[in-house]
């Protein structure tokens, strides 16, 4: 069983992530990449700076990977989240999952990204075309974790 979860500062290698979870028993391999896009809330974005409470974020990521393998038995999972300065189209998060069957692979991939967005202490500051930068505070996120 593969369980890999890591914060990284270098670019996420999609192929390497898939290779971590590939295996002869796995009939379905899925890769999800979250990438920096050029518009958010109608503002032109030129880049994003990601930061984290690193010790806790690394542990939460690892917990999510382990929990995924309990929810979806036979799952192999590899998660990487990048920190630092990212440019447009850079991948901020990569999730590779593999399972004997596609149904659980799709469900596990979706579960991991939603869980990551809900509870891993990572923040992003967007840089805009007009030279300003602001922390992104998604509405409702604060209430989600402890309830």
């Amino acid at each position, binding site marked *: 069983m593969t369980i890999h979860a890591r914060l990284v500062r270098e670019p996420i290698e999609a192929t390497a992530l898939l290779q971590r979870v590939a295996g002869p028993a796995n009939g379905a391999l899925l890769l999800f990449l979250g990438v920096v896009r050029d518009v958010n809330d109608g503002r032109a974005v030129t880049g994003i700076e990601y930061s984290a409470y690193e010790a806790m974020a690394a542990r939460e990521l690892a917990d999510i990977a382990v929990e995924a393998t309990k929810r979806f038995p036979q799952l192999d999972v590899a998660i990487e989240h990048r920190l630092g300065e990212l440019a447009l189209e850079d991948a901020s998060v990569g999730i590779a999952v593999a399972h004997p069957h596609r149904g659980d692979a799709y469900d596990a991939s979706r579960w991991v990204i939603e869980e990551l*967005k809900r509870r891993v*202490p990572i923040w992003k500051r967007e840089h805009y075309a007009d030279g300003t930068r602001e922390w992104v*505070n998604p509405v409702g996120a604060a209430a989600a974790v402890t309830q």
Partner: protein
Amino acid sequence: MSVTVLLFASYADALGTSSLRLDLDDGTTVTQLVGQLRERAGARALPPQPLVAVNERYARTDQALSAGDTVAIIPPVAGG
């Protein structure tokens, strides 16, 4: 008793620091600590009930703190 408080992202900007040490009465809860923090200059940005982690685990608002705890005030998370 003394605890370490960690601040991140917009909260660190608002209070002008990413960590500080607070001396508290024994039995102080998470909510009471946040109340003391909010009296500091720039702390308007902190909501009355922010997410808080004690020793790297999300904590409930009524959790009592212990000497030496590391208390992180967590802005709305935005990973992914």
